[in-house]
């Protein structure tokens, strides 16, 4: 049909005029992501060095960054350090995985029911404000000085954040998408699978990210308090380093703990950014 080809041509022209095909280069993205972080690290090290040089604290209390970093370098060659790191990280991974399963399930269930929402919703938020270290006396009473006690506190720290992420993610799903999904034939679980969960994904990922932060904090607090024989861990070493009066070692361990936390956080951020970029929420 002649009119149809005219229309097609007009539409093609308009489409070309109204869209751009520019996408930012990977290299420039990487630079923009890394440069500010490098600057921040340099700033912190500089301030630290400055405090040491000013002599506000004696060096046997606050060692210069060089001493701590070279101690960290030394630790990286030690098998016991890696063993302790493996114990701590595996506790974190196990605890966080379990918390994710429980938190995601809880979030989906609570977000689906108006009754559960008002019954448990504020309780979940309340739990989130509770410092995880305050749970340890009870955890030790219930489970003695054991892995279970640490796991319990990780769960109670991380689950509320993860569940809250799901609930708020679901709350912020645009109603038009749900209406559209229903109209296109999505019902019940199908609506969750194809519309609500994907739409809530940014909220869910940020809940997981926050959940990891809580899990990691609870874990280290637990390792400081709950020392288990023959289970070396970063937290136990940290506690030892204070008793031994070895500040460079202590700070080296702290840096290691910080680095692991940052590394995981960066991974979550990368996932989060990827999701948002796919949806055009960031350029």
């Amino acid at each position, binding site marked *: 049909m002649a*009119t149809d080809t005219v229309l097609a041509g007009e539409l093609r022209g*308009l*489409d070309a005029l*109204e869209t751009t095909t520019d996408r930012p280069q990977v290299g420039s993205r990487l630079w923009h992501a890394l440069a500010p972080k490098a600057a921040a690290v340099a700033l912190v090290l500089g301030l630290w060095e400055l405090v040491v040089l000013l002599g506000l604290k004696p060096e046997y209390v606050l060692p210069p960054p060089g001493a701590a970093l070279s101690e960290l370098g030394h630790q990286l060659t030690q098998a016991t350090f890696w063993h302790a790191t493996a114990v701590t990280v595996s506790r974190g991974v196990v605890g966080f995985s379990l918390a994710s399963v429980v938190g995601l399930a809880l979030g989906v269930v609570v977000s689906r029911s108006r009754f559960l929402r008002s019954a448990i919703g504020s309780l979940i938020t309340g739990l989130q404000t509770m410092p995880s270290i305050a749970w340890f006396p009870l955890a030790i009473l219930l489970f003695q000085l054991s892995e279970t006690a640490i796991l319990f506190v990780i769960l109670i720290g991380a689950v509320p954040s993860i569940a809250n992420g799901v609930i708020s993610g679901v709350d912020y799903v645009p109603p038009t998408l749900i209406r*559209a999904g229903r*109209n*296109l034939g999505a019902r019940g679980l199908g609506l969750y699978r*194809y519309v609500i969960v994907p739409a809530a*994904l940014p909220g869910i990922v940020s809940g997981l990210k926050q959940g990891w932060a809580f899990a990691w904090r609870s874990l280290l607090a637990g390792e400081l308090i709950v020392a288990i024989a023959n289970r070396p861990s970063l937290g136990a070493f940290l506690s030892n380093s204070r008793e031994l009066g070895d500040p460079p070692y202590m700070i080296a361990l702290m840096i290691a703990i910080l680095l692991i936390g940052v590394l995981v956080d960066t991974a979550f951020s990368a996932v989060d950014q990827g999701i948002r970029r796919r949806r*055009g929420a960031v350029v």
Partner: protein
Amino acid sequence: MTQVAVRRSPPATAPVGTVAGEAVTLTDVTKRYAGTHGALALDGINLSVPRGQFVCIVGASGCGKSTLLNLVSGLDAVTGGGISVEGRPAFMFQEHALMPWLSALDNVALPLRLSGRSTVDRERLARELLATVHLSAWADRRPHELSGGMRQRVALARTLATECTVLLMDEPFGALDAITRDLLHDELESIWRARGLTVLFVTHNVREAVRLGDRVVLLSSRPGRVVEDYRIDLPRPRRFEDPEVTSATGEITAALRAEVARHGD
């Protein structure tokens, strides 16, 4: 001799049961907003739409145009009266309501996935539908990479994927610029004719209603009642700027304004 562009149909009487050849029938439809003493949104609407007809619904704010479509679509329930619709009507909103995490192709394929089509079928049908709206070249783009008009065309292709015969449109082109809107009128008209769709098209733009509709139904506001049912007998394709379109628009706009003025008294 000037052709009579606009003819007033006699007011529709309440039909009994389903009428053969009618795609949509509303019988004394009443809608109250939530709450027992909620305001009356629609009051005694009778409307019957033969299969394949393009009906535009116009009215000022608060006439319940959108409520009417929600009722026909089944997204909302009537307070009184009855609605019968052929099949499951598809709905197109003013906002495109595309899933932002899916490509244009996957958005069109979503209803096919929900109706349990195979992967191969989904891909083939979705590509055909994208070709229908002239967007084959943009299949892999996500909604945010498309212009407003293109998104609405993807949304149109997606509603067609539901294999509906009745299409409900709630100001689908309200947020578009004039050039894009004109082209989309042409596109919608050609798809409507090719597929024999029945369309209920809500708009506040009287000229758009005259450009597209076989009929223009004018609703009053608060509560919404059918004030006038105009038949638009102008030949197609019509253009926005045709003098006949202009004069019909003038007549209906005058009636709409009179209706609005009633609320100022």
